[in-house]
């Protein structure tokens, strides 16, 4: 950077520190939000991946069951004998509760002798009964391993339970419970992971899974290519099983939250984008103010490129300072976010996983680059304008960047909007709506680019009326005569209003659709659930409960995760008696003809994820014989609760396929005239002792309230990010209007000289503000509606695979309208107070 540049930039910043501080702050906040969201998401996803890898030991590959029902252990010797397999370790995996605590733990039953070579990370370390502690430990030998009563616990469980070697450990899986003896810890399991290990035979016996396995962990022979091994093993797998690896499992879990995380990242980038608008405004006004300075520099021999370079260098320095501060701020925000909001940022994806803050150097470089690029990008147009300046005109100060004869161009704006519309029609990339985001950016850019033309088109008809109010006439003339300056102020208004309205429409539409969906879905009178405790209703309990006085009907249900695609998280099979009065489905589509096999109903996300439509065949890996069960899609229903997809199956069909009669939930319909309180008490009284206190009983209103609370929670961070983006946008508007007003001191001075009252000048500025606000509002509302349709029909379905109907938040829109127009007029008037000062009068004089 040359000395001249340094002097000029430093001089400009010394003269107007607040303007640059504000622009730098906007960049810093944008970078900080983006980086914080990224760091939190990465830390949480890493912790989740760590949890998945821990429970998998260190196996090269795994054969896994597609459902929690497992597969026959007869498969084990067949897999063991395959050529690429060096060793194979059978395992049974449960979601269990230890010592009746609420937190779930992963209980793994393994064959220690096999695990020694395949998954040593899952091995236990025996602790001495009298002198507990690492110093008095010895490795678990075969004797310990064969002890069917021994249980080994990871440090995370020990921290919670404070157990000592030899203590009895009550372990509950579904309806079954057994007391083991605490034998030792699991040093191979990373900190924070709640894993327990028992002998596989004990696991099969104690928890009713004789002859069944959840997975087989594999160690491949040295020199065998993973791909070749995969193909060989895959060809030997029956239905109901799939080939997996720990990395793939981590990716499957990660994919569920990816869209939510990317959406938050995008919102954070919106804050950065609005920061870019602020830089643009600051630089545009700085150029307007420095016209004569640039003209002088040109006259003194500074080249056009050098003027442009100076402004871009200002942007670069601004971007660097803002971005570095933003990264520091972002890291701090991430630490606070992880501590107070949690790793899933309200999305509810990584339940039970404790995330630790991890610095992300690559992301830091990326956000630094984005911040700098935004600041330089915001400076580009003003730099070009300054470069184009005719020095002879500018130095006389009779000219301006404004040329009222210039016809605002509408073609670039139309082109941008058409490109945006085109992008909105494109499919997702890697299940992410990247073209959707691009469409939003293009439509927004098109809207901003259309402002000079739109402002003139909307204002021109107003000149036909003679208001006889000089303040209004002057305001109108100025906005018409200086459309590019007006649009500099409008850019911020339109961008922030458009995004605010789009988000408001999307969230209102989403919430409204969720409310409708809840009304249909929660059609029972009372709901029972054991989800939190992991308990189950066995057939005997079901019969007892069905006989409760005051009940007209009770439908027992169950949720079973099914792995249908190696790259996707498990779809949830919802087992319910579909012919009961309390069971209704919010159907969107229905098959016109019957298919082959059993009918199933896919949720909208499941239909989109697996590419199914009504009438299609969809085999399910549920057959008891080892072969897949024939099924067909009878309908598609709306679901906002299970992003990974859900499949409804009638309980009778499910029992026929699996023989599984245990259930975890129930929907109760009261008999006419029954007292809800009495029925509830009667149900509680009929629960067997081991289920008392472990069943949640709730009325639909409570569930509805809770569901909407979760909905609002998941949007809380979205609201915060959007509010910040809007705040930056409005700050930009205020800064722009204020700077423009200050730049017009001579105009105000002249008006004061020729007899315009200060009040009239304020009225003129207020009229300008109101007109700007109204145009911004009109454009923002149209843009917002357009962008909301991209959010509703492109980004949401492509991110989360669900659709919704558009609903307009009229009250909110009216509030936004009033707020925006008031803010624009108020800001203009506040800034205009300077016009009333003595300096405005002196500004007209060249020689004082």
């Amino acid at each position, binding site marked *: 950077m040359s000395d001249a540049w340094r002097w000029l930039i430093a001089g400009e910043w010394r003269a107007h520190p607040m303007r640059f501080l504000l622009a730098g702050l906007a960049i810093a906040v944008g970078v900080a939000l983006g980086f914080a969201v990224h760091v939190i998401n990465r830390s949480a996803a890493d912790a989740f991946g760590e949890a998945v890898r821990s429970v998998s030991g260190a196996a090269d590959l795994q054969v896994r069951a597609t459902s929690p029902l497992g597969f026959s252990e007869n498969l084990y010797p067949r897999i063991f004998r395959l050529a690429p397999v060096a060793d194979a370790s059978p395992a049974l995996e449960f979601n269990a509760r230890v010592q009746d605590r609420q937190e779930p733990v992963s209980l793994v039953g393994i064959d220690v002798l096999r695990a020694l070579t395949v998954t040593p990370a899952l091995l236990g370390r025996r602790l001495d009964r009298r002198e507990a502690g690492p110093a008095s430990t010895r490795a678990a030998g075969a004797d310990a391993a064969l002890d069917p009563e021994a249980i080994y616990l990871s440090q995370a469980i020990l921290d919670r339970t404070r157990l000592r070697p030899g203590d009895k450990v009550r372990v509950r899986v579904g309806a079954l419970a057994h007391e083991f003896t605490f034998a030792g810890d699991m040093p191979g399991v990373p900190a924070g992971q709640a894993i327990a290990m028992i002998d596989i035979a004990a696991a099969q016996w104690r928890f009713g899974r004789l002859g069944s396995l959840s997975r087989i962990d594999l160690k491949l022979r040295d020199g065998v290519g993973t791909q070749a091994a995969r193909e060989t093993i895959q060809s030997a797998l029956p239905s109901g099983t799939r080939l997996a690896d720990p990395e793939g499992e981590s990716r499957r879990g990660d994919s569920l939250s990816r869209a939510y995380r990317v959406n938050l990242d995008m919102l954070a980038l919106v804050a950065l984008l609005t920061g870019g608008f602020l830089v643009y405004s600051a630089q545009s006004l700085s150029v307007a103010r420095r016209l004569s300075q640039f003209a002088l520099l040109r006259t003194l021999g500074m080249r056009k490129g050098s003027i442009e370079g100076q402004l871009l260098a200002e942007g670069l320095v601004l971007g660097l300072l803002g971005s570095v501060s933003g990264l520091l701020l972002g890291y701090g925000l991430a630490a606070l976010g992880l501590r107070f909001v949690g790793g899933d940022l309200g999305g509810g994806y990584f339940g039970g996983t404790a995330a630790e803050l991890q610095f992300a150097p690559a992301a830091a470089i990326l956000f630094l680059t984005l911040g700098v690029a935004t600041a330089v990008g915001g400076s580009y147009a003003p730099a070009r304008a300054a470069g184009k300046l005719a020095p002879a005109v500018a130095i006389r100060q009779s000219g301006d960047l404004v040329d009222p*004869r210039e016809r605002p161009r509408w073609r670039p704006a139309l082109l941008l909007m058409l490109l945006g519309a085109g992008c909105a029609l494109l499919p997702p990339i890697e299940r992410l709506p990247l073209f959707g985001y691009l469409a939003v950016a293009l439509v927004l850019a098109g809207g901003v680019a259309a402002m000079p033309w739109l402002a003139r088109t909307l204002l021109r008809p107003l000149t036909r009326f003679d208001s006889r109010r000089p303040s209004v006439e002057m305001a109108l003339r100025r906005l018409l005569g200086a459309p590019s300056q007006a649009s500099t102020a409008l850019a911020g208004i339109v961008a922030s209003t458009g995004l605010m309205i789009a988000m408001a429409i999307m969230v209102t539409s989403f919430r409204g659709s969720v409310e409708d969906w809840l009304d249909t879905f929660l059609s029972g009178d009372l709901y029972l659930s054991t989800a939190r405790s992991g308990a189950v209703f066995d057939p005997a309990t079901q019969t007892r409960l069905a006989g409760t006085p005051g009940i007209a009907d009770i439908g027992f249900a169950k949720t079973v995760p099914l792995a249908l695609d190696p790259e996707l998280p498990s779809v949830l099979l919802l087992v319910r008696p579909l012919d009961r009065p309390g069971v209704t489905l919010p159907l969107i589509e229905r098959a016109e003809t019957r298919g082959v096999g059993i009918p199933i109903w896919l949720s909208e996300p499941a239909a989109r994820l697996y590419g199914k439509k009504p009438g299609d065949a969809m085999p399910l890996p549920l057959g008891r014989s080892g072969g897949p069960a024939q099924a067909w899609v009878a309908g598609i229903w709306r679901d906002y609760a299970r992003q990974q997809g859900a499949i409804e199956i009638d309980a009778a069909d499910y029992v026929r396929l699996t023989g599984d009669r245990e259930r975890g939930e129930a929907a109760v319909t009261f008999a006419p005239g029954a007292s809800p309180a009495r029925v509830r008490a009667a149900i509680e009284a009929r629960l067997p002792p081991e289920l008392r206190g472990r069943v949640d009983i709730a009325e639909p209103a409570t569930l509805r309230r809770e569901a909407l609370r979760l909905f609002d929670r998941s949007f809380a961070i979205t609201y915060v990010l959007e509010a910040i983006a809007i705040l930056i946008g409005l700050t930009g508007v205020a800064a722009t209007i204020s700077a423009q007003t200050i730049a017009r001191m*001579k105009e105000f001075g002249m008006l004061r000289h020729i007899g315009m009252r*200060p009040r009239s000048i304020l009225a003129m500025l207020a009229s300008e503000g109101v007109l700007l606000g109204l145009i911004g509002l009109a454009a923002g509302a149209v843009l917002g509606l357009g962008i909301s349709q991209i959010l509703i029909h492109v980004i949401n379905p492509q991110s989360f695979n669900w659709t919704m109907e558009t609903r307009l938040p009229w009250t909110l829109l009216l509030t936004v309208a009033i707020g925006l127009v008031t803010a624009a007029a108020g800001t203009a008037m506040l800034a205009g107070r300077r016009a009333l000062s003595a300096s405005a*009068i002196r500004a007209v004089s*060249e020689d004082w």
Partner: protein
Amino acid sequence: MNAPALHIRQLAKSVPGGRLLFDGLSLEIAAGEHVAIRGESGVGKSTLLNLIAGLDTPDRGEIGIAGTPLATLDENARTDLRRDAIGFVFQAFHILPHLTLQQNVALPLLLQKRSRADALGRAASLLDAVGLGGRLRSYPKELSGGELQRVAIARSLVHAPALLLADEPTGNLDPDTARQIMELLGKAVKEQGAAMLLVTHSPAAAAMADRQLLLTHDGLVPA
């Protein structure tokens, strides 16, 4: 007997910091009389114009426009007096870039709540008088410095003021253009029957006035 267009009695004004610009300054300009004031930079010429226009207040003394003492008027009344009785011509023209020439000239009439058609009509005739009748719809960007000052002269006279205050009206112009502008200004002001107080460094411009004065720290003295 008609009141003078401007009277100033025993005027004193100091700048922030306490430096006294002038003290005991008195002046009277009859209706239709042209007076030029010269003086060194910083002696307070522009401040004197601001005081006369009611945009600044003196430490002591009295100023009256067409017989009306400014001290008796509140802020709004002073503004209205400026709007109706005073015209201004500035060194840097101060023509609004986003208005056409006609709209710029019509501005003072709009401030008087005259109808737009009336204001534009009168502006057109004033622009015609200053030789810009064919460029009513042009924008300031298209004009030279001399032409811009012609627009400023038209604007200063459009509302037929009793007093015109001209602050270095030729300061930004070449000598030939300056002479033309001064001739035009003098002629136009005379035709309107207005008095003019011209503040200038230029001896040539000052020479065109009926009376020349020099502003010093001791007050106004004949030049």
